[in-house]
């Protein structure tokens, strides 16, 4: 099997190289022969997917059958490892993850090449660009990080999978993140292809929009699954630590989010063409940079990745990519001239520009923080990592501005918005936000929370207010539009809103995404009100935290082939009434030298999580040390992510029908002319 895998990897490289080289020749020739060559390149590209799939299958088979003659399997698996985690071995180490990247890239390429009839010339060019990236990853997988390296002698058992990865979510988190990272290669390929070809019109934007949204959705899922994994496994009570690996996933997410907004300017007004093309280029380069940072050992991370020379390869790819993008931009920049001018500062266009400024500002700040250790090492010979205190101070204010724009943007009209329209559109949402804020402040004050004395709690209050404003504006958009359709179809408001949504799935799906985002923001803001307590607990001891009382009932130990575990059994009382039993645990995996992993016990409600961890044993007394944390509103984050996924799904669905407007009669035209200069009722409609 390893031999078959090795052969397939080499064969896949040959096919991808053929696809790239012949694709270039076909693009240069542009005649009947070139067309036929392009078709062979397309087929070779599709076949490369089959070859990489067999190679990946061979590696998984080696893991499932405990083939420790393969070095990669020896270092990342062991006999006692449960089946699903053996499957996850594919992406748990350096060599496997490069192969996995190549697999996903060829899978995306396969779908792209299969759907070539969308626009044969453009897809052929994009396929050629994608094949170039495939060649890079297959060279890596064959020569720099080969997963099929063999051992001189076969060991009886392997070193085991990283214990932190032995958690169900870890089986799906990396594939999701990789699908996102690799997914941005497709819009990049289309953008570069369109620039090279001087492709007329915005069709490439329409084609890539769905690809970009899919990549963005995978990135969102990947990031949130990683956050949930950190929350459930790392045991420190948080979900985001601003670790370089986490930052690496956030960077392309921020730039893709900026692109998904600014691309609307190009579609609707023919503006920001240069900006959009560079946003896609930058997004792709950020995904490569992230990979380079986390795999080269340039920055320290709690996420264990091998340090190797692979970083040099990625530096090379970055330089080549930037050079190619810059050359074609310089040569064809006149093709990207804007078709329209900005007519007013108070318009949808300007809100998109400021939205992009803030998103890219956040992206730049995260990038600066992530690269600062390298700068510090170069200047002072000390690698100084920046942590949460730095990022929170820089990113939170930017984030708050962004939420404000999320509330304001959709209510501004394209081209120009009058003051009267702003007043009309913001009166109700603004009042609702203020009232909700006062109610929240009253409830917190009644519970003794002096939020005005703490900067972070003040930020959280502002976040609550702005989030309510977003929810109110989204609701007002649905309701006002729904009323129009209700009256038009003589039906109820709910059906009116349904009809409204079905006719513009992208726009209203986008609003649902905004709603999901503010749910996430509310969840994040809850962290400002966290409370915790750590205590040694012998049988019968009590730990009091807020409304909760934890009573220690027993302490147990267990031993199986994979790990040893220690756990506490705790009765939980809320306001003096029995609520539930919690069982926080600590596991030490044998194959990994006894590294502890926390299996947290969590009682989760919409209001708060009671998060309990087994911190270890007091060596002197032999009693377990328990840490309890009250994390308010955490569940809103996970619910928000599901709402975001639902909204993105909606935005991907085509509209029900294209609305036709009857030709106005002379009287109607006269009446319209009379009303000229007036703002529409819903400026954003």
């Amino acid at each position, binding site marked *: 099997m390893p031999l078959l895998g090795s052969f397939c990897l080499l064969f896949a490289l040959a096919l991808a190289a053929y696809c790239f080289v012949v694709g270039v020749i076909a693009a240069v020739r542009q005649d009947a022969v070139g067309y036929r060559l392009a078709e062979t390149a397309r087929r070779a590209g599709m076949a490369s997917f089959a070859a990489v799939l067999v190679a990946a299958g061979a590696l998984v088979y080696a893991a499932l059958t405990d083939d420790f003659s393969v070095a990669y399997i020896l270092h990342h698996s062991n006999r006692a490892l449960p089946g699903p985690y053996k499957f996850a071995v594919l992406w748990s180490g350096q060599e496997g993850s490069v192969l996995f990247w190549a697999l996903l890239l060829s899978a995306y390429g396969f779908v792209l090449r299969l759907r070539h009839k969308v626009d044969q010339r453009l897809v052929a060019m994009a396929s050629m660009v994608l094949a170039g990236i495939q060649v890079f990853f297959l060279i890596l997988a064959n020569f720099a990080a080969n997963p099929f390296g063999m051992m001189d002698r076969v060991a009886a058992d392997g070193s085991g999978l990283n214990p932190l990865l032995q958690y169900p979510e870890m089986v799906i988190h990396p594939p999701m993140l990789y699908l996102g990272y690799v997914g941005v290669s497709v819009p990049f390929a289309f953008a570069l292809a369109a620039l090279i070809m001087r492709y007329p019109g915005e069709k490439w934007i329409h084609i890539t929009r769905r690809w970009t949204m899919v990549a963005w959705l995978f990135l969102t899922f990947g990031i949130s699954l990683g956050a949930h994994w950190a929350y459930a496994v790392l045991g420190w009570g948080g979900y985001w630590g601003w670790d370089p690996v986490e930052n690496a996933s956030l960077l392309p997410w921020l730039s893709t989010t900026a692109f998904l907004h600014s691309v609307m300017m190009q579609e*609707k007004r023919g503006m920001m063409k240069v900006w959009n093309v560079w946003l896609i280029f930058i997004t792709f380069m950020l995904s490569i940079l992230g990979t380079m940072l986390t795999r080269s050992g340039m920055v320290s991370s709690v996420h264990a990745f091998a340090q190797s020379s692979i970083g040099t390869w990625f530096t090379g790819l970055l330089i080549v990519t930037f050079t190619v993008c810059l050359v074609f931009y310089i040569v064809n920049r006149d093709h990207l001239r804007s078709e329209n001018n*900005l007519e007013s500062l108070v318009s949808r266009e300007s809100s998109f*520009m400021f939205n992009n*400024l803030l998103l890219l500002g956040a992206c730049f700040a995260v990038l*600066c923080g992530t690269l600062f250790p390298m700068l510090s090492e170069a200047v002072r010979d000390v690698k100084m990592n920046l*942590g*949460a205190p730095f990022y929170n101070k820089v990113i939170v204010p930017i984030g708050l501005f962004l939420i404000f724009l999320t509330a304001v943007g959709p209510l501004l*009209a394209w*081209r120009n918005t009058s003051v009267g329209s702003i007043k009309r559109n913001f009166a109700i949402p603004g009042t609702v936000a203020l009232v909700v804020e006062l109610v929240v402040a009253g409830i917190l004050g009644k519970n003794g929370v002096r939020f005005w004395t703490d900067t972070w709690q003040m930020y959280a209050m502002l976040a609550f207010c702005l989030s309510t404003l977003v929810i109110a504006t989204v609701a007002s958009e649905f309701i006002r539009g729904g009323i129009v359709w209700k009256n038009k179809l003589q039906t109820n408001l709910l059906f009116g809103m349904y009809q409204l949504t079905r006719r513009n799935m992208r726009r209203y799906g986008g609003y649902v995404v905004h709603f999901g985002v503010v749910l996430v923001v509310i969840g994040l803001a809850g962290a400002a009100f966290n409370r915790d307590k750590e205590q040694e607990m012998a049988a019968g001891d009590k730990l009091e935290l807020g409304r909760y009382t934890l009573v220690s009932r027993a302490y147990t130990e267990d031993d199986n082939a994979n790990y040893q575990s220690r756990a506490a059994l705790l009765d939980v009382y809320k306001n003096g009434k029995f609520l539930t039993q919690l069982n926080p645990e600590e596991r030490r995996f044998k194959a990994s030298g006894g590294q502890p992993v926390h299996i947290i016990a969590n009682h989760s409600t919409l209001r708060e999580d009671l998060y309990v961890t087994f911190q270890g044993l007091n060596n002197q007394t032999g009693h377990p040390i328990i840490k309890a944390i009250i994390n308010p509103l955490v569940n809103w984050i996970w619910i928000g992510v599901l709402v975001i996924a639902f909204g993105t799904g909606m935005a991907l669905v085509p509209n029900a029908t294209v609305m036709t407007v009857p030709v106005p009669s002379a009287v109607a035209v006269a009446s319209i002319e009379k009303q000229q200069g007036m703002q529409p009722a819903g400026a954003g409609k």
Partner: protein
Amino acid sequence: MKRAARLLILPLMAVLLMGADNQEARYQKLGGKIMCTCGCAEMLLQCDHVGCPNSDRMTHELRANVQRMSNDEEVLDWFRSTWGVAAVVEPRTHGFELLAWILPTAGLALGLLLVVLVIRNWKMRPAPVAAADLNLAPDLEALRDRARRETEI
């Protein structure tokens, strides 16, 4: 007399307890700014790896310094001088570390300037010819298309 003593003791205890609370909060807050220096790349209060040579000592030192020093920056400086500048993950607001604060702000300011310049450039360009001047009345469908695109109806 007893009542007077109680009246004196109660606020005193409250102040002392409040102080204890503050010390714990300071310990947690400062612990979130200090990194374990053993190379595990974890924050000091989160480091739980087996046989860590530094974290126990560092947490004891943190607790002692929180009691001894009233100024947070003084505690952090103590860790910088004892364990190296890399031990503290919040950059100082002077010297080389100031750069970490300046870069994102400067980037954002530069971006804002760029946006303003782009908008100014757009506004200074000659305005597109008004639809009415082109006498496009018969071509209503094209205008409608444009209206649809721009208003999303």
